[in-house]
Structures are given as C-alpha cells and as structure tokens.
C-alpha cells in the first residue's frame, strides 16, 4: 500500500481574500479580485486592470521575516505558508519533530525587483545598481523565505516552471512524502504583479481590457495577477494521528512538455498530460467529478484546453470552471489557488463558478463552465490543470481523503 498524502492546511494570500475563510466565501460568492493597477505607474498603458493583493500587509502575518529584507514574491510565499501552518493547526513542537520540505512555484521570482534593476540600468546606468535590489533578486529566496519564516530546517526548492509551477511544486512535495523523504511539505506558488508581465501579455494581444471571461464567446484574454498560495501536504497517517482536519488527498500528478513551441499550447500534449495524471493517480477519466481549468481566458488557451478535455473525457465531460475569472492569472501561484479551490469544493460540496460569463461559445459546446454562480455538488475526485510558457503542463488529481 503506497503512502497516502493528505492536504491539511490552506494558506491563500489572494486578491479575493487572505486566509481560508475569506477565500472560501469569495470563491463561493463569485467575488472578483481585479481592479485598477496601483503598484506601478500605468501612464501610457492602454489597459490598466490587474489582480493585485491590495490588502496584503506582510507585517500583520509574518512572525519572523523582516519584510524589508525580502522581495514581494518571497513575502507572499512566506505569508501564505504562515497562514497554511495556522490553518493546519501545526504547533511548533510537531513541526520541529517532523521531516519537512518547502517547494514554492513561481513564474518570475522577484519580478518587481527585475523591474527596479532594469529601470535603473536603462535610465541611470549600470553603476547605479542598488545592492538591496541585487541581493533580493534570486528566485531561490522564495522557498528559503518559507523555511526561515517557519523556522524549518528541511529541504527547500523554488520550482520555476512558469504558470504551472505550483502544480509542479505540489507534485514534487507529493513525491517527497510518497517516497518517505518528508512527513510534511509546504507546496504552492507565489508571484507579483509587475510592469513587464502586464506589458508582455498586452503586446501578445492576450490581455483583457476590463475583466477576464474564460470560456465566453467574447473572451479577450487574461488579467495579470499576484498572490501567495501555499498548501500543507502531510503523510496521511501523520495527519490522522494528530487529529488534523483533512481537506483532501493528493492522488497523483502528471507532467508533460510540448517540446514544440514556447507560447502556443499543444492539445495533444495536454491530453497526454491528463491521461498520465489519471494513470498515476489510479483513476479513470469517468471518475473525475470536476476540472479546475487552467482557463486563462485567452481565445487559444480555452479552446485548446476544451478540446483536450473533450478528447480525453468524451462528449459528456465533468463541469469545468476557471477561477482565473475572479482572481486573474496569478502566474506561478495560479495552480496553487486552483488546488485550494479543488480542496474547498470537495470539502464544502460546491462547484466554484466561472464569473464574468455572458455568452456561451459555440466552439466550446459540451463544456459546462459553471457560469457565474456556484452550484452545490458532491465531489469525490477532481482535477486541477496548469499549463505554462514553454509547453510545460502539470495536472494534479485530488480525492476527498476520507475513506
């Protein structure tokens, strides 16, 4: 019998809510977290909306880290891990006695620092390089921040596999626990809203003007967003022995690489990823009750994803919704929020909605995007999709973990 891996804590630092209670309420009520950008000067930008976490006050959450010494993405990761450990009810003695690991997914690491440095070099010259910026830049700091915030001495890895990174991190954490290398692992992702990410998606023609409307006929693209999304994964018997609340169970994951194009998604490779994830999790497609979509809201992504779903699940697939409609695209944190949405959906018996849905897309016939309103549902096995630049796909399968 393989070692089972429970999900025992959720730490969302998101633009729809900080902490699991607010996040759950917002998710269920279809609250939107996007707004006009405040973190950088948008003068001259034809589009100005993003999903910033405006209410994030690192001092209020962090116990040990000095926010002045860490970049925003590291702060988000560490704060999310702090909330997750509290939600999991893990006391310091239990943590200290356990073998731990931290795996933080990210697309850009400290993207705001990237912008600071590039602006300095462009406008003030290389010798003006700020030591503080240079010191805070390395992406490895995101996972080190989690361990230092929680006082952990176990292994740490930042997993920088772009927009599927949190699923990669969850997968790695799952493998660590499965193979007996850790008892408890903090896994998820973090990224920050940044000027160049906004500009880049705008220039690719993939940025929406007002809102993100995945699976809508008139969907126009993503809104960039940020957040920290950390989950506590724990060996099932360890979790049960301490009477932990169990949100669900990681059943397995699959990862594929298109190896064909840096930006365009590849339906066959995504379908292969679904099948691998099902096989590794020991489930059949017809057992999946819900798919938390990558669902970026670009015309290409949603079509490609829908066709891959129809190919693997047949003409009558399970409901497929995109929480990016509410959160925007939080990059490396995105599939971490997806995994949380899946866990909460199973625990509380509802389907998270795709908000901003106006007109069904005839090209996506057969896909039920759970438009605009959450629906009650009894969910046993769910699927969380994450796709990334570079054709890196990762799909995580979760179960209820109550049997």
């Amino acid at each position, binding site marked *: 019998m393989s070692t089972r891996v429970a999900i025992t804590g959720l730490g969302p630092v998101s633009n729809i809510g900080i902490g699991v209670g607010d996040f759950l309420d917002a998710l269920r009520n279809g609250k939107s977290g996007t707004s006009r950008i405040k973190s950088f000067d948008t003068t001259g930008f034809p589009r100005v909306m993003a999903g910033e976490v405006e209410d994030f006050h690192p001092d209020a959450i962090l116990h040990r880290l000095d926010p002045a010494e860490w970049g925003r993405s590291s702060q988000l990761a560490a704060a999310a891990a702090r909330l997750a450990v509290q939600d999991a009810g893990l006391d310091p003695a239990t943590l200290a006695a356990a073998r731990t690991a931290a795996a933080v997914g990210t697309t*850009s690491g400290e993207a705001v620092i990237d912008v600071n440095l*590039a602006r300095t070099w462009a406008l003030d010259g290389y010798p003006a390089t700020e030591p503080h910026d240079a010191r805070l830049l390395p992406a490895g700091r995101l996972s080190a921040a989690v361990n230092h915030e929680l*006082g952990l001495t176990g*292994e*740490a*890895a930042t997993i920088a596999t772009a927009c599927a990174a949190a699923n990669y991190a969850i997968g790695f954490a799952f493998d660590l626990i499965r193979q007996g290398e850790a008892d408890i692992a903090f896994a998820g992702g973090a990224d920050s809203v940044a000027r160049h990410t906004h500009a*880049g998606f705008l*220039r690719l023609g993939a940025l929406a003007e007002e809102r993100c409307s995945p699976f809508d006929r008139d969907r126009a693209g993503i809104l960039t967003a940020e957040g920290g999304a950390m989950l506590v994964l724990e060996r099932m018997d360890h979790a049960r022995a301490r009477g932990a609340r169990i949100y669900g169970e990681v059943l397995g994951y699959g*990862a594929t690489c298109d190896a064909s194009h*840096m930006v365009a998604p590849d339906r066959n490779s995504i379908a292969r990823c679904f099948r691998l994830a099902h096989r590794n999790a020991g489930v059949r497609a017809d057992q999946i009750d819900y798919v938390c979509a990558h669902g970026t809201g670009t015309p290409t992504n949603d079509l490609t994803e829908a066709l891959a779903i129809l190919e693997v699940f047949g003409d009558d697939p399970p409901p497929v919704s995109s929480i990016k409609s509410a959160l925007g695209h939080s990059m490396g944190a995105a599939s971490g929020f997806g995994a949380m949405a899946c866990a909460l959906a199973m625990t509380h018996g509802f389907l998270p909605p795709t908000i901003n849905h106006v007109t069904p897309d005839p090209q996506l016939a057969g896909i039920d995007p759970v438009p605009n309103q959450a629906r009650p549902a009894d969910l046993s096995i769910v699927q969380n999709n994450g796709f990334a630049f570079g054709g890196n796909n990762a799909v995580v399968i979760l179960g209820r973990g109550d049997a």
Partner: protein
Amino acid sequence: MPDTLLITGWGQVGPAGAGSAGCRPEAAVPLPVTRAFVDPGLDPVKRLGRGTARFIDRTTALTLMACDEAAADADLRIEPMAERVGVTLGTSCGSVAGTAEFIRDSFVNERPHMVNPIKFPNTVINCAASHAAIRMGAKAINTTVSGGRVSGLLAMRHAQLTLRAGHADALLVGAVEEFTPENAWTAVRGRPRGDDTPLGEAAAMLVLERAAAARPGRRSWAELLAVTVQTFGDPDDRAASHRLGRAALAAAGVPAEEVAVVSLSGTGDPHADADRRRGLAGLFPDPAMRWRDAESIAGDCYSALAAVQLADVLTLRRRDPGLAGRSALVAAFDETGVAAMAVLRFSGSE
C-alpha cells in the same frame, strides 16, 4: 528498494570545459570587473545555428550547448524515447540580461507597452529548460529549479525523486549561469565577495537515468546514491557542513572511508568557507583525500557552480579508472542558508 540511478554522460560549456583561464571580458557597456572566467571562443551561432541563436538569451544558449554535449557524451538518442526523456535545470533567475533587455523597452520607448513580444518568453525563468526540450525533443517532465549556488544540486534532488516516481526514464540535469553586464552588476552588488575569485559563466548538464530502463550502448560512470538538502537558520552555524555531510553519507549508505573525492567550492566568505572545509575535513581525515574546488577552474559561476562541481568529479573518474568503486561527495552552500550535498559512487568499467 528505490530505483538505481546512473549518470551516463555529461557536457559542459564555459572556461572549464574549454580549458581556458580567467580572461578580460569584453562588453559594450561598463563592467564591474576586469577579469572573468568566460570562453571567448564560445559561439552560439556556430554551435546552435543562426535560427536558434538569434532570439535566445545567453542563459538559454549556454544551456542548449551543454545539453548537446551531454546527450552526445551519453550516446542518448532521444527520439525513440521522447516521451520518457525530460529536462531538469537549475538557474537562479533565468537570464538577468534577457529579462532586463525586455523590460528596458518599457522605459525607453515612447509607449510603455511597446516591448518586443518575441522576447517575452526570455523573461520567464523556465525559458532555457523549455528551449532545451524543444531542441532535444524531450517531451517528459520539464522542470526548472532555483536555489542560488545550490541550484545544480537541487536539480539533482528533483531529478532523483522524479525518476524514482517514474515520471521519466532519463533526464538531462544540470545548471547554468551567464556572464553578462547585467548579471555581473547583480553579482558584484548583491553578493560581494571577501576574496578575489572572478565571476564566471558556465552550463553543465548530466544525463541521469533509471538503471531499470535499459537502452543499448549505455555506459554508467557513476551511481547517484543520495542528494541531501537542508536549511540552516543561523548563517554562522560552524558545524553545518559536518552535520549535513554526515546526513548525506547516511542517506547514501556510504562509510566515510569509501569517499575518495570531496568537491567543496568557496562562496566568497573566507570565514564561512574555512568553517565548511574544516567541518568536512573532520568527516574525511584521510590525507589522500582529493579535495576539489570548482571555483578555481570555472570562477564564481553561482547557480551553475554545483553542476560544474559534479562534472568536475566525473571528469576525474574518467581520467582515473582507479577511482572505480570509490565515492565522491559534492557540497554546495547558498547565502540563503540552503545547503545540499550529493553522494556518487563511481562505476567500474563495463
């Protein structure tokens, strides 16, 4: 029993691979250093072709060249097993220069969104690993890990778990660091050194395979026994290397007497470096122990360094068949307090 993992070949670009020493780097903009370990003869256009070299950043170019060399060295023909071959790459930030070049347009062009969309993927940290997958046709799991100086060993750790979980049969595993003006300024200002080791650039890739997934023509140079990663909260923890070394040997099931080579590179903090050396020397008192310092041959190539260390100890074995059956320990420490050690056992001749 977990799968046995074999290192079947490796490749490296940068001065250590090319055999040159530190030289005077050239750049059109001010550099913070006058000497660096770079290979002026390294020509991505010649090695990769103009079509590939034109739009990629320096980090990606170095990675692709090292992947080519590693696959050739291992005689790894990927196409028949494309869906079972992946990439695991260590890099601290992706290309600092490629990212800055893209962002620059937003500040100097009249309209702030007029950036170059073709180069947008260069800003994403997994750019090099993704390009490697495209070039090599490697369709299995493709992972990028970041951990500063420990990146190369974090890549090995991730690859070890990934192969044992059955996500792939073979992985191109390694790490990369570019020498560009942007990266040099970041290094000099962000992690000033207390010694005079020059900066360097390098990429080193290894082919790591599941022994159970046999393929014709394969030769094993070493078995990966363990990769142990820990985080040290106290930067002045003088016993860190000793404790981590003990843990790595225990994980590998290797007695200290079996170890013939220890690779420990400096980090630019002379006191911490001396403590680490002393801590490991306590585990390996044998005066015949071969101590290796990859910084002396490749410079401070930061996130590539641990992979260069691995390639260095493997090269030692290739030159010295007498090392067959003995083990090597490769150690790396990062400023964040994250440290890692790998234990390999050199294979005999086949």
